[in-house]
Structures are given as structure tokens and as C-alpha cells.
């Protein structure tokens, strides 16, 4: 049986979701953003929520998320996405409202908006891409940058006497009464991607429940191979050896 015999519509077992359109994404080769975009599109498609989903894109590499997933979007000022999601969900309670934010956006400039939206128990989903660096602006130190890790604004490695410590904001979120589902996932292997998809699905299902029970927060521990100056493969390896110690994978809270 040849390849040509197998490649037929009836034998298809995997393809990118159609909600993720055909535009080539601007992300660097091997970037985790692409996988997470694909998962969001898959879950929305599988849940049939194309007409109910409203996404909030951040400032950072994912600012153009709206170019790739064919739903309605609003593009936020840096860090303000959870405040925006709050308003949209309150005004349109039957919609799926989610934010898509990086570590600088969510855990530095937008810390207040993140914590307060979760603490109010907004029935929203926060997708948090933690790659421990500012990607779009060129690899500067993020709140989640690990101690000793080199970036363009801590070229000799993050020094705690100068810059303090990496911020495990997801652990803080898990302490809040208003946060209902808090989980940390990754997308570096097929198994990890399957788990991350389940987490996103659960978060979206939570947010579509008619009774407000609290925020769902999904951290994806990610790579930024360009910012880290590694190949995508090495970046995945470095992530599992270093990032996972500071940001262990698994559910922090599931109510």
C-alpha cells in the first residue's frame, strides 16, 4: 500500500482545525504560540462556539492572534485583557470570553487586572503563555524569568539582589476564592498537547456554564526559542529541565 493509497479523505485522522485559517502565522519556527492557537481553534470548533466566542488578544507576540483564529476579537492595551473580558462577559453572559496573554502582559503590567478579574470570580478563561521572556520586544527579562537566566535586560543572568525572583503567578491565582480551575500545562510533546487541550476544553466548558462559578486559568509553560537563543528542540529540553522545576505541570485547583 503506497502513500498515495492512504492519503484519501476517508482515511484522514488529523488536520489543523478550519477555524485556524490558512494565513501563515508570524511566529518564529517552533514557537509554542502556534500549538496553543491550534488548540483553542480546535476546542471552539468542537464545542460549536464559533458564533459565541470573543477573544481578547494581548500586547506581545500574540497581538495578532486575531489574524489566525476566525472569531470576533478585541485587541487589548498591554495587560488590560482581563478587565476587558470582565466587561464583555458581564454584558454578554452567554458568550465564551477568553483572554490570551503572555507573562509580561499578565504577570507584570497587568498583574492587578489579572488578580482582580480572577478574584471577582468572573466566568472567563485566561490562557497564559509563560515563556519567561518578552518575545516581541526582543527578549527582555519577564517577571517569570528564572534566577540566573540570561535575557537582553539581564545579560549576566537574573540576579535576585537586582531583579528579585521569578513570579509564580499561577500559584497566587490558585489561592483566590474566585478562581475555580487553575492548571499548568505544556505543549512540548504529543501527550502534553493532548493534556493541554483537555485543560482548555474544561476551562471553556466552565465559562459556558450559565451560573457564575469562577474564573478558569490555564497556564501553558512555553518556549521562546528565539528569545532563549536555542533551537526549538533544545528549547523544549531546556524547558523540561529548568522551567518545570519552577513551574511544575498539573492542576493547582479544580472545583
Amino acid at each position, binding site marked *: 500500500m503506497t502513500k498515495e493509497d492512504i492519503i484519501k479523505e476517508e482515511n484522514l485522522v488529523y488536520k489543523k482545525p478550519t477555524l485556524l485559517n490558512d494565513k501563515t502565522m508570524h511566529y518564529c519556527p517552533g514557537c509554542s504560540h502556534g500549538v496553543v492557537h491550534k488548540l483553542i481553534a480546535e476546542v471552539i470548533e468542537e464545542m460549536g462556539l*464559533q*458564533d*459565541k*466566542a*470573543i477573544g*481578547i488578544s494581548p500586547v506581545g507576540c500574540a*497581538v*495578532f492572534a*486575531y489574524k489566525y483564529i*476566525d*472569531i*470576533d*476579537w*478585541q*485587541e*487589548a*492595551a498591554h495587560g*488590560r485583557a482581563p*478587565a*476587558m*473580558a*470582565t*466587561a*464583555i462577559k*458581564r*454584558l*454578554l453572559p452567554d*458568550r465564551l470570553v477568553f483572554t490570551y496573554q503572555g507573562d509580561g502582559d499578565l504577570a507584570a503590567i497587568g498583574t*492587578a*487586572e489579572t488578580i*482582580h478579574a480572577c478574584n471577582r470570580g468572573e466566568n472567563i478563561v485566561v490562557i497564559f503563555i509563560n515563556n519567561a521572556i518578552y518575545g516581541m520586544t526582543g527578549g527582555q527579562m519577564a517577571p517569570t524569568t528564572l534566577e540566573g537566566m540570561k535575557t537582553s535586560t539581564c545579560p549576566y543572568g537574573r540576579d535576585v539582589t537586582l531583579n528579585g525572583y521569578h513570579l509564580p503567578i499561577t500559584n497566587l491565582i490558585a489561592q483566590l476564592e474566585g478562581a475555580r480551575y487553575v492548571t499548568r500545562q505544556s505543549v512540548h510533546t504529543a501527550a502534553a498537547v493532548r493534556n493541554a487541550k483537555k485543560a482548555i476544553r474544561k476551562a471553556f466548558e466552565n465559562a459556558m456554564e450559565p451560573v457564575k462559578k469562577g474564573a478558569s486559568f490555564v497556564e501553558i509553560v512555553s518556549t521562546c526559542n528565539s528569545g532563549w537563543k536555542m533551537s526549538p528542540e533544545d528549547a523544549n529540553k531546556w524547558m523540561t529541565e529548568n522551567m518545570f522545576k519552577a513551574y511544575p505541570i498539573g492542576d493547582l485547583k479544580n472545583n
Partner: protein
Amino acid sequence: MSEEVRLMKGNEALAEAAIRCGCDGYFGYPITPQSEVMETLMKLKPWETTGMVVLQAESEVASINMVYAGAGCGKRIMTSTSSPGFSLMQEGVSYIAGADIPALVVNVMRGGPGLGTIQPSQADYFQTVKGGGHGDYKQITLAPNSVQEMADFVGLGFDLAFKYNILCVILADGLIGQMMEKVVLPPYQPRRTEEEIRKQCPWATLGRTPDRDINVITSLELEPEPMERRNIALQAKYALIEKNEVRYDEFMTDDAEYLIMAFGSAARICQKAVEVSRKQGIKVGLLRPITLFPFPYNRIKEHLSHIKGILSVEYNAGQMVEDIRLAVEGKVKVEHFGRTGGIVPTPGEVVDALKNQIIK
């Protein structure tokens, strides 16, 4: 239908009017001297009657971004604040301008700079009329001079905002917010249905229906040419507003040899000053801009044939006076008289200033 006349504070009238004008959402943060707005809304619980959402945000930064998001859904959304809070909001204000969406912000001004004072001021004229945030943008600015106008300008502000897809600012001062007067409240107007919003605001992010492409609310454009096109379109919109929406009020200007110009509560004091001056034989009239952007440049020019000088009276160190001078182009004398720090001038002080600075 009988009119509903009530005695209330400007801030309370504003809140009542918001509910009656079909407002969909209010997002605010407490700050003196406008805290009664949210207090009144929370007391009235409009979410149980009209369905209006009211939420206390964690900061003015958050509240203006809630306004931005709600406005992006085509909803009638407002916030209110006072000067330091309005400074914090400039980020969101600029994004609202860049994204071409309609919203209403009320600034009940207090004295500055910095934390300043909680007493009345008009020192945010420049901030509001000349920009305030980053980028080339304008916002329609309405200056109420009574509790009645605080109520009336909510509906007017929303109408103008949606007519042009622009931010409308009600620029009140602490005096208007805090003083109690008789007010006729507007009749109840239902909130628009989602169908009506989809029709009126086809750009709104309400969820993509199969009959249309996706909607995106954004001010981002990395390519210079489309970005310039957006800027040119914005400027064209502002020019249209300058042509269509200038509003002002006049008192005893027909035979005037001198003009006093003032906005907001300062205009009330100046009206008294005009009456006092007239009794002393001084032919003076009052021109009160109601819209600060668009500014009544042309109306000022029309008066130049018969007046000898203009006194601009403001609770600041001289801001609107610069726009008056732009209109006058040096043809007559234009001077500023103001008090700052939360001090409100008396009519007597205004009359003296008119005599000493303009007539002498």
C-alpha cells in the same frame, strides 16, 4: 406624561439619567468629588430593572478598559471619574480613539496638579480638548453648567458618540457635581436589543455570525500606509464634527461691547457678573461654549465686528483663553482671569477683572 422634577446633586442626576438613557454598562472607581455617581447606581440597582451592568473596578486603568471592551461590543457604556483618575484613563481613551468606537466618560474636575485638591477646578481643559493621551486624536467635549445639563448631556453624549463613533467627554467641575438643584429627569428609553446593536454597529464584537466576516476591535496597524489612512480618516471625522456639532449659549451679547467667556459653573458666576456690570452701564455679554471640542471659533469671530475685548474666566491658570486668542487672531484684547487651587471666583471679582484687564 407628567415631568419628573427632583431636587438632586449633579452627580446623582447623572446616574439617574444614565439608567434612563438606555445605558448598558457603567464601570467606575471611587474618587472625590464624583463618588455619588456609582453610589447612586449601586443604590438604584438598575441591573434588576433595565439590565444595566454596574461594576466597581480595581482602578481607573481597569475601568476605562472595561469601557473600551464594552464599547467594542456596540454597547452604550460609560464611566465617571475626577482629574487624577482621568489621567490614569488616558491609555484607554487613546485606544478608544484609535479603534473608532463610541463611549462616554464623565470627568468631574478637581484641582491639580498631582493629588491636588478635592475642590472644584477647570484645569483639565487642555488635557481633554488638546488630547491627553498619545497620538493625534480628539474627543467631543460637553461642559454642563447646571444639574439639569448633567442629566441632559448623558443622552446627548451617547447620541453624539454613536453618531461619530467617538469618545464623548462630559467635562464637569466639582461644583456642578456636588451642588443640588431642581432637575427634570429624562424619560425612560429602553436599552437596545442585540439585533438593534448588530444593525447600528455592524463592527461590534458580539460573536461572529455566519453571514459576516470576523470583527476585530483594534488600533494596531504595523504598516505605515494603512496607519496613515486611519489617521486621515480620523481627522476627517473631527473636521465633520467641527462643522456640525458646535454648541454654545449666549446671554446679553446682542449689543455687547465686551464679552466674557466661561464654561461650566464658571459661566453661572459670569452671568451674575454680566448682570452686575450692566447695572453699572457696562455693555457686556456672556458667550458660553457648551462644546469645548468642537470649539465655537466662528461664533467668536462673528462678534469681532462689535466688541472691544474678551475676558476668559476659568478655574485655572489660563487654558481656554488660548483657543479664544486663536479665534481672535490679535484683533481685540483677550485676557484671562482665573482662580486655582479649588477657589471659585465671585461675580465681584469678575467685574473688577473686566474693568481692570479689558476696559481700563
